[in-house]
C-alpha cells in the first residue's frame, strides 16, 4: 500500500513538472505582453525607463529557463505569485474561487453519479423496452451536447422566459455578502448545477447499462439463480458490486471533464468560480494566476483518478493481486 502511494506521488510530481513546463513555454511565447496587461490602458503614459524597471523587477529581462526556475523556486516556497488582474496573491484567489466551484462541481458530480447509475440500472434491467430506448436516446443526445450550449438553453428558458431563476452570478447583484441568504445562493446554483449534471449522467448511465446487461447474462448470475437466489437479494449480493465498478472508476476519473465543464458553465452563468477565473486570467494575460490554476487543476484531477484507483482496489479483489505482482 505504501509503495502504491509512493509511486502515485512520484507520478504526480513528474506530471506537475511536465505540465508547468509546458504551460510556461506556451504562456511565455504568447503575444500577450505582461507589462501591458498589468498597466492596462495607461501604457502610453509610462516612459521606456519605467517600463524597463518593471521588466527588471519581474525578471522579464532574464533568459526563459531562468525565469522558469525562479517561478518553480517560488512555488516550492509556497508562493504562487500575485495575480495581475485581481491584485491579490494567487493562492488566495484559488482558495476563494475554489470554494465557490466545489459547491457547484460537488453537487453536480453527486447528482450525475447517482442519477446516471440509477438510469443505467433501469435501462439495463429492461433491455429493449421503451424505457430503455428512451434512456439510451437521452444519454446519446446529452453526451453529444456541449455543456455551454445546454447552459444557454436553460438560461433562455428558465431565466429569461419563465423568470424562475436568476440569469447569473452566485448571489443577487448589488447585495452585501452578509445579506445573501442560503435560499438566494441555492437559487443561483440551480441552473449551473442542472447544466453540469443533466449532461453528466449520460456516460455513467450508458456504461452502467452496458455492464448490467453483461452481468445479467453472466454465468454467475445463472448459477446464483440456480442456487435459489432471486429478486433484491440476488441483485444486492451479486449485481450491485459487479456493476458499480465501471461507474465508480468512470465517475472519479471524470474530474477532468467535470472541471472542463465547470469552466464553460461558469462562463455562461457568470458564476464566480475557478473556471471563470482561469478564463479571465487567460484573456487578461495574467500569467501567475493562469499557471497557479493550471497546477491546481492538475492536482484536483489527479486526486480524482487516485481515488478511483484506491476504490477499485477496495471493491475488486482481482486488483490486489496485480498490484503485488507488479
Amino acid at each position, binding site marked *: 500500500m505504501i509503495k502504491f502511494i509512493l509511486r502515485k506521488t512520484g507520478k504526480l510530481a513528474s506530471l506537475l513538472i511536465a505540465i508547468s513546463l509546458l504551460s510556461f513555454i506556451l504562456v511565455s511565447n504568447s503575444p500577450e505582453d505582461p507589462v501591458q496587461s498589468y498597466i492596462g490602458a495607461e501604457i502610453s503614459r509610462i516612459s521606456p525607463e519605467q517600463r524597463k524597471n518593471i521588466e527588471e523587477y519581474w525578471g522579464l529581462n532574464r533568459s526563459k529557463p531562468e525565469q522558469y526556475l525562479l517561478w518553480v523556486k517560488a512555488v516550492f516556497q509556497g508562493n504562487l505569485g500575485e495575480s495581475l488582474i485581481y491584485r491579490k496573491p494567487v493562492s488566495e484567489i484559488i482558495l476563494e474561487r475554489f470554494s465557490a466551484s466545489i459547491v457547484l462541481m460537488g453537487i453536480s458530480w453527486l447528482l450525475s453519479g447517482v442519477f446516471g447509475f440509477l438510469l443505467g440500472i433501469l435501462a439495463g434491467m429492461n433491455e429493449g423496452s421503451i424505457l430503455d430506448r428512451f434512456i439510451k436516446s437521452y444519454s446519446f443526445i446529452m453526451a453529444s451536447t456541449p455543456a455551454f450550449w445546454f447552459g444557454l438553453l436553460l438560461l433562455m428558458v428558465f431565466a429569461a422566459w419563465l423568470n424562475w431563476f436568476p440569469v447569473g452570478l452566485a448571489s443577487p447583484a448589488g447585495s452585501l455578502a452578509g445579506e445573501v441568504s442560503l435560499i438566494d445562493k441555492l437559487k443561483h446554483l440551480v441552473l449551473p448545477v442542472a447544466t453540469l449534471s443533466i449532461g453528466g449522467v449520460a456516460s455513467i448511465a450508458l456504461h452502467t447499462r452496458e455492464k448490467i446487461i453483461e452481468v445479467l447474462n453472466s454465468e454467475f448470475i445463472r448459477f446464483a439463480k440456480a*442456487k435459489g437466489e432471486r429478486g433484491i437479494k440476488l441483485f444486492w449480493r451479486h449485481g450491485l458490486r*459487479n456493476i458499480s465498478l465501471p461507474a465508480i472508476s468512470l465517475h472519479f476519473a471524470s474530474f477532468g471533464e467535470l472541471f472542463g465543464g465547470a469552466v464553460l458553465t461558469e462562463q455562461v452563468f457568470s458564476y464566480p468560480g475557478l473556471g471563470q477565473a482561469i478564463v479571465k486570467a487567460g484573456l487578461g494575460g495574467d500569467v501567475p494566476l493562469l499557471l497557479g490554476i493550471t497546477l491546481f487543476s492538475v492536482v484536483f484531477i489527479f486526486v480524482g483518478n487516485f481515488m478511483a484507483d484506491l476504490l477499485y482496489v477496495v471493491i*475488486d479483489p482481482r486488483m490486489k493481486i496485480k498490484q503485488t505482482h507488479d
Partner: protein
Amino acid sequence: MNKKSFSNTKNQIPLLEVKNLSLLFPQYKEGLKESYIQVIRDFELTIYPGEIVAVVGSSGSGKSLLADSILGILPDNAEIMGRLLFNGEHLSTKRQQQLRGKSISLIPQSVKALDPLMKTSKQVQSVIPDKKAKKRIQEEAFIKLGLPPETGDKYPHELSGGMARRVLIATAMVSESELIIADEPTPGLDELTWEETLTNIKQLSKSNRGIMFITHDIHAALKIADKIAVFYAGETLEIANKEDFSGKGERLRHPYTKALWLALPENNFKPLKGNHPESDEVLIGCVFEKRCPIATEFCKTNKPKSAKINNGITRCFYA
C-alpha cells in the same frame, strides 16, 4: 451400488420425469412477423434416485437450456411446453422457485459461474439452510473434496481450474438436493482432474441422489452414467443403458448413437458426415434423416415416435 435398469425401477416413483418437453423462442425475422425457433422438441427423460443419467449431445444442441428448463431459470421470452414431474408432483414455475437450490441443484461448467467479487466459502455457504452450521458444513465438504482449508478465503480468480470445479461440486454436495444437474462439468480439464471430477460426481449419486449429467463427452458419460440419453436437434433420439455401448454397437437402437459409438478413436474412428441442423431449420420428418445411412423417403416426411425397444427408448422407424 445396485444398478437399476428399466425392469427393476418400474415400481419406484421416478425422481424426475420429463415428458414431451418443448422449448421455443420467439424470433423476429423481416418485418414484424413473429416466428419461433424450437430449441427442444418432444424431449423425454426419467431419472430415479441414485441414478446417473447422461444427456449426450453435440454443442449447440440446446443442452444447457434443458438444464435451465428444469431449474426454471429460462429467459422471460422462452415458451415451454410439456410435462415436468418431480417426485411424482407437477413441477410448476412456483414449485421450481421453491425447489431450486434446495431440492434441485446445478453444477455449472466453469469458474465463470462463481461471482468474481465474492469469496468462495460464502458462495458455497449460500445454499446451506442451517445458518449456524453452514461454516462447518462447507469446511467439511472442502476437506472431503481435498480442497485446502484456505480455499474458502480465496476469490474465484485465485483458483486453478480443478479447484474451481471442486468448489462448484461442493455447492451441490452441501445442499440437501435430491436431484443434481451437472451441466458440462468436464470440458477443458486435464486427464487427472477429469477423472477426479467424474469420481466426485459419481460419489454424489451414492447418497441416493439422482444426477442428470449433461455432456458432449461420451467417454465421461460411459464412465459414470447408468443410462445415456442421446440428444440431437432438441430431441431424445435414444435412451440406452450403459451396457449397450459395446462391440460394434449392435445393441444400440438408433443409427445416430451407433455412428457416435463408431466415431470413437478406440472403435472405428469413422466420422459421421454432415452437420447438426441449425436451430431455425424446419424439420418435418425425422431430425436425423439427412445424415442417416438407412434413411428412406418415408423418413423425410414422417416423424418417428419414441418406442420402447430392448429396455431402452428410441425414435427410429427401422430400429
